Structures are given as structure tokens and as C-alpha cells.
């Protein structure tokens, strides 16, 4: 049903060359606000409309595979094999990150330091109190209260949880062999809040609690965040520059299908829990015109969308990465085998 409607719309768009294009996409909720903002400005400038449905990353992958949308969007990149199997290509659009936040009386934002293994032990329920030796050892001079730690996590399946648990699994073998990394995991301890707001509300209401939220959410709500130790050994705070550093330093060239999690990057200023959100399109477009219009929109967004993204506290892709993506677009071909966008 949806397929026929979309088909009809695409058909209508193709029928008249001068008729404004109407594109549809679906997927991740995290970048939805910035995609909506871009779509609005794009329509004002070009007259082309774009309809993006924030149905979740899993839904986005399902929809693009079922051909019901012109592009899918996912916070969780697909591996190169999966992409090849489904005839898809992916590229990163904007960067986000995950920030540990807490409610600890007397502790300022960025004052408390946590490392990957400590974070893992807290979320496994091994470290139970804030004045535990493992926390005190990396926080000399910080008055840590003798308070039980309340762990807060997301209850809904989300890319935020995927990034966070992937980071824990990367840094702590116990986490990798225990709960593991996924959109939703079997949490050993803690309570689940629905969405970023749910987690933030529980953290605010519970003294001694720790949670994790998206960077934009932590920033806009001025939450007390923790400093993390990155691969270079430096303690970093979550800032737009730290996310950008992680993305810029990453080896996109050698990542087949742009499969890159940006976790624990080697750049000296990189924030360790960083991730990009991705767009999925078919490598063989059924219609050259539609394929062209989709890529034209994302090209326009790369060129003109940085300010809008930053205003919404997203971090734009670094320019060299954009250049790489533009080159990769040449692999997207129409029915005639020619690249749809140049």
C-alpha cells in the first residue's frame, strides 16, 4: 500500500521534469530535528520537498530494504557485508555523542572523572558506592559522598544505548562477555527511563544517580556530566570540538562502507563515546531522477547545513570526510549504469 503510494509519488515526480521533487525517508529519531530543519530550508530555496519519518533506526533499515522510501537513516552503521547483500550504500551525515550524566551533590560538571572500566563496573553493579576506591583513585581531591549509586539507562531500544554499550564492551572485557552491545541489553542493575527525557528525569530526581544521554540533550539541560579518559590518555569534556576531533581523526578512507563507530579514537582531543548517524540508499537506483534528487539534497545539506546543525547542537561532518562521501556517491548508479549524481 505504502509502496504504491510512494511509487505513485515518485512516478508523478518523474512524469513532469519541471515538477518539484518530493522525497521520502525514514529512520533514526536522533537526527530527525536537523533533517526536518534542512528539509524546510531546502524547500524554501529549491521548492523540492522532503518527508522524513522518525520511526527508529531499525525501522529505517526495514523500510529502505522494502523499497518503501527513497532513503533510510540509521544511528547504527551496517557492516560492509550486510550493505553488499542488500545492495545498499551508507554515508555519515552528522555526529553525535553520548555523555555520562549524574546527580552528585557538591560535584560540578566535568569535575568527576570516570574511565571506561569504571563506568562498566558501575553499570554492572560491581561498584556500588560513589566513594569506592576505584572511583576515588582517579579523582584525587574530589569529595566523594558515601552514597549508593543508582544506575539509570534507556528503556527503549536506541542508538544511544548502542553507542554506550559498544563503548563499554570495547573498554571492559567483563561487559563484552556479559551484557554485550546492542540497542537494548539485559541490564544487570538499574532503572530504565523512556527516551533521553526519561533518563534525565530519573537522574535529576535521584541523588547519587548516574545515567547517559545524547550530547545535545545534556548540553541543553545543563546536566552535570563526567569527564572521560580517551585513548590518548587525556581527560576530555564533552564539547562540539571533542566530537569533531573524534570524527576528523577517524580513518574513514580505510573503513569499507563507512562502517565506523568513532569510539575511543586516537586523536588527542577526541571524546571517546562519539558516533555518526548514517543515511542508507540503494546503490542501484530504480530511477536516475529520484537518485539524483536524494543525493542533491544531502549535497546541499553538506554545503549549507552546518549552521543549522550547530544551532541544534549537532556536530557537522568534517570537510575531508564530506569529500570522501561525495566521491563514494559516484558508485550510485541508475538503471542505465551511469552515476545518478555528479
Amino acid at each position, binding site marked *: 500500500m505504502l509502496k504504491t503510494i510512494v511509487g505513485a509519488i515518485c512516478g508523478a515526480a518523474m512524469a513532469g521534469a519541471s515538477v518539484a521533487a518530493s522525497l521520502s525517508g525514514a529512520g533514526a529519531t536522533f537526527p530527525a530535528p536537523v533533517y526536518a530543519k534542512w528539509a524546510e530550508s531546502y524547500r524554501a530555496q529549491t521548492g523540492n520537498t522532503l518527508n522524513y519519518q522518525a*520511526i*527508529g*533506526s*531499525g*525501522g529505517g533499515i*526495514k523500510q529502505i530494504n522494502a523499497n518503501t522510501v527513497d532513503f533510510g537513516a540509521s544511528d547504527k552503521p551496517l557492516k560492509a557485508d550486510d550493505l553488499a547483500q542488500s545492495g545498499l550504500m551508507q554515508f555519515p551525515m552528522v555526529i553525535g555523542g553520548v555523555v555520562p550524566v549524574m546527580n552528585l551533590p557538591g560535584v560540578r560538571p566535568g569535575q568527576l572523572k570516570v574511565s571506561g572500566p569504571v563506568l562498566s563496573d558501575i553499570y554492572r553493579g560491581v561498584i556500588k558506592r560513589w566513594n569506592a576506591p576505584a572511583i576515588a583513585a582517579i579523582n584525587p581531591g574530589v569529595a566523594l559522598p558515601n552514597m549508593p549509586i*543508582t544506575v539509570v539507562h534507556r*528503556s*527503549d*531500544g*536506541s542508538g544511544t544505548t548502542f553507542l554506550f554499550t559498544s563503548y563499554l564492551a570495547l573498554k571492559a572485557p567483563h561487559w563484552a562477555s556479559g*551484557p*554485550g*552491545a*546492542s*540497542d*537494548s*541489553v*539485559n*541490564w544487570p542493575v*538499574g*532503572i*530504565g*527511563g*523512556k527516551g533521553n527525557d*526519561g533518563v534525565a*528525569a*530519573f537522574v535529576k*530526581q*535521584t541523588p547519587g*544517580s548516574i545515567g547517559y544521554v545524547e550530547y545535545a540533550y545534556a548540553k541543553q539541560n545543563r546536566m552535570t556530566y563526567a569527564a572521560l579518559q580517551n585513548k590518548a590518555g587525556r581527560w576530555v569534556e564533552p564539547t562540539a570540538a571533542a566530537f569533531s576531533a573524534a570524527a576528523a581523526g577517524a580513518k574513514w578512507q580505510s573503513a569499507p562502507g563507512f562502517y565506523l563507530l568513532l569510539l575511543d579514537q586516537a586523536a588527542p582531543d577526541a571524546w571517546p563515546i562519539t558516533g555518526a548517524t548514517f543515511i542508507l540508499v540503494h546503490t542501484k537506483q530504480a530511477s536516475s531522477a529520484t537518485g539524483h534528487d536524494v543525493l542533491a539534497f544531502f549535497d546541499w545539506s553538506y554545503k549549507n547545513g552546518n549552521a543549522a546543525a550547530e544551532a541544534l547542537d549537532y556536530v557537522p561532518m568534517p570537510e575531508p570526510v564530506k569529500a570522501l562521501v561525495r566521491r563514494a556517491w559516484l558508485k550510485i548508479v541508475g538503471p542505465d549504469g551511469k552515476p545518478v549524481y555528479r
Partner: protein
Amino acid sequence: MSTTDVSSSGSADVARRTSPRGKTFDPIFEGLCFAAATALLATLGGVLISLFIGGWPALKTFGFGFLTGVTWDPVKDVYGAAGPIVGTLITAAVALLISLPIAGGVAFFLVELCPQSLRRTIGTAVELLAGIPSIVYGMWGLFVFAPFFARTVEAPLITSAAPGSFAEKLFSGIPNGSGILVASIILAIMILPFMAATLRELLMTVPPQVRESAYGLGATTGEVVMKVTLPYVSRGAVGAVMLGLGRALGETMAVTFIIGNSHDFPHGLFDAGSTIASTIANEFNEASGLQASALIALGLVLFLITFIVLTLARLMLRQPARA
């Protein structure tokens, strides 16, 4: 309904049936009614069958363990639904326990005691409560009620419970306003207006003669309510309660916000838990494969629980009638 009504409509019926127009119209009318009724049945059957087909992979993999297992692990693809099932039953039962006396009180007050001028105001307020979308209850519960409850009820109870006592077990948990009890209270507030409004309508169907004669015999208000009007409407009252219970069992959004969403078996009233509906709402978006199947199987379990509850209500209704 008086007897004159019945006879007049009966005679009109006869007149219509004798006219030739009625001959053609009646079979069509009957057919439409039959179609409406069977469409409902077919929908019910269709839902049941598709839930069963969708949930079959999970049911086949875990068998009976799906109902008794306490591990819900999307990473290792192990799904046991005991936590959500128990959470659903406990929250619905506690919600009913809280809201039933209040709903009864509201209904009796409105019908028996309330001054005419106040009746409209309270009646409208009850209807307004029923019209509030459940997500609003969820937000209010999370941002307003939960912190208040944590400060004024949970924290004092947890600190005052003697170590090792039953109270300590009952009130164990984190005093932050999320958990089984708060979810039950929010549910109670949500189902209250439905039950109160239905009970009020029921009590109003008690013929004034019956009630007046009881008063005439010198019965107190309490006696009239307990011994005359309540038995008179008992059948319908169970229906009203079931309506509330049905909503409590299936309520999703408000519960998801405040129950704490832990798949573990809840151990205390302040413990985080989950319900079938909240689990589905949380995970269905991003689920695929066996996880999606397990969630559909959860839906089937909820369907069956509701069915069993309704059947039990019917049986309970039948017994006092025989005695």
C-alpha cells in the same frame, strides 16, 4: 421501560411486517446485523491467529519457559516473560484495589448524598478526568507525582522500616518515584473515572421505589447502599470493574514512563518493574527477528490474560445468582 412502550412498538412492528416494503427490508437488515457481528468475531479471531503466528518462533524456541523465565536478554536472544507478566498482574491488581473504593465512594455520593447543585460539577470533573490522554498522565506522573511521592512517602518509609522486617522487603527499592507502586497509583487515577462514571449510571438505574421503600423501613444510607442498591446492580458493577481492570492491564504509555522498566522479577513495591504493554512499547521499534517474535508472543499472553480475567468475571457473576 413501561409496558405500554413495549406493546406500542410491538404493534408497529406487526404493521411493518405485513407491508410489502418490510418483506424486502427485513432480510437486508438481518444480513447487515449478522455481518456486523461476524465481522467483530472475525477480527478477534484474526488478531488471535496473527499474534500466534507472529509469536510462534519465540514460543517454539522457549516453550513453557517463555512464561516462567526471568531473563530478557536481547543481545543473547534469550526471552523469558515472567517479569513483565507479574508486573502487569501486580500493577493492575493494586490499581484496582486503590481505585475501586474511591470509584464506589464517588458514585454513591453522586447518586445518594450529593446536593443537586454539586452533582453536575463533580460529574463533569469525573468525565474530564476520563478524557485526559494517557501520555499526559505519564508526563505528570514522571515530572510531578514521582518526585513528590519519592520525597514524602518512599524515602520516609524506606528509612523507617526496621532492618530484616517484612516492611523492609516490601518497601525495598530506590526512593526516586519510579516503580511498581507509583505506576499502580497512576493507573488507579486513570481507571477511576471510567469506573466511577459507569457505577454512577448503574446506581441511577435502581428504581426509586426500591430505594425509597428501604428508607421507609428505617434503613440507614449505608444499609441502603450495601443491602439494596449494590446487590441490585451487582452484575453491572462487575462489568464496570472489569472495564477498569481491562484498561489497567493494557495501559501502555503512562506506565512506561514511571515503572522503571526493569525486566527483572520485582521484589518490592518500590522496585522497578515492567509490564507487558510497556515492554512492547519500549522495544518493538528497534526489534527484529526473535526479539520481535518474543514481543508479539507477549501480546498474545496479554490477550489471553484479558480473556481469562473476563471469563473469571462471568463465572463470579454466575455463582451468587445461583446461591
